[in-house]
């Protein structure tokens, strides 16, 4: 993708109203795990991109309006989901694993081999 294309993509996306999904992030020994609430989203409408260390989640769920019905009471609106994260260097972008279940996305971002903190012995001294 050339820079112009990338820019256009960003523009089309931001022109629509987007929600930032609620997300939990935690770290285990092997991976950084991210879980995001994306109600109404299925695999086909979900787009996850990882460029350099920037992870972007974008989802366009099916429209929330119900054809042939009037909206009688409203507490949530329609729109897409969009959120991006900057990943630490220790994440191995090649091995990211994504799973979607009941409207929750789980992303497992394994750490690079040897990224675990290593104690360095100090030589010398008497």
């Amino acid at each position, binding site marked *: 993708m050339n820079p112009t294309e990338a820019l256009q993509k960003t523009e089309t996306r931001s022109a629509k109203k987007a929600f930032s999904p609620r997300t939990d992030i935690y770290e285990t020994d092997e991976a950084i795990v991210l879980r995001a609430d994306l109600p109404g989203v299925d695999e086909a409408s979900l787009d996850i991109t990882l460029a350099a260390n920037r992870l972007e989640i974008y989802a366009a769920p099916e429209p929330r309006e119900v054809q042939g019905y009037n909206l*009688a009471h409203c507490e949530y609106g329609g729109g897409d989901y969009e959120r991006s994260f900057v990943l630490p260097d220790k994440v191995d972008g090649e091995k990211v694993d994504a799973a979607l279940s009941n409207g*929750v996305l789980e992303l497992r971002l394994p750490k690079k081999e040897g990224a675990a903190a290593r104690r360095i012995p100090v030589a010398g001294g008497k």
Partner: protein
Amino acid sequence: MLTHNSVPGAFRNSLYSWSGCGDLDRLRGEVNRLFSAGSAFPALNVWSNDEEAIVKAELPGFEPADIEIALEGRTLNLSGSRELEEVKEGEKLYHRERRTGKFSRSLKLPVGVDADKVTAEFRNGVLSIALPRAAEHKPKKVEVKTS
């Protein structure tokens, strides 16, 4: 936003044009969120026509078995719970924004529904409850006769 009780005019034809919620509802939602972070989960949308109403709730991460739907007269009760994965020994939690625990909401329907015909579907974390109007609450056409 309804905390407990009524959905005024849930079956009434609406004046909203769909671009999300009406501006006033959105404003009310924002204000409510400022004052009571936990009171209105899940957010509900109600759709209606002459035949039935559809109540929609966003419940990501729930299983159908975690959700209880009960109809008592004209009151629809929705409850359930979601336990988030616990953080184990040696794991570090950076961010917790997702809701956990129990919820319970009820809404009063302004017209009767046929309780035997209520159906519910759960897909991609969205619950849809279809509530057909009771026969006596369906709009009837009145013929005007000339004398």
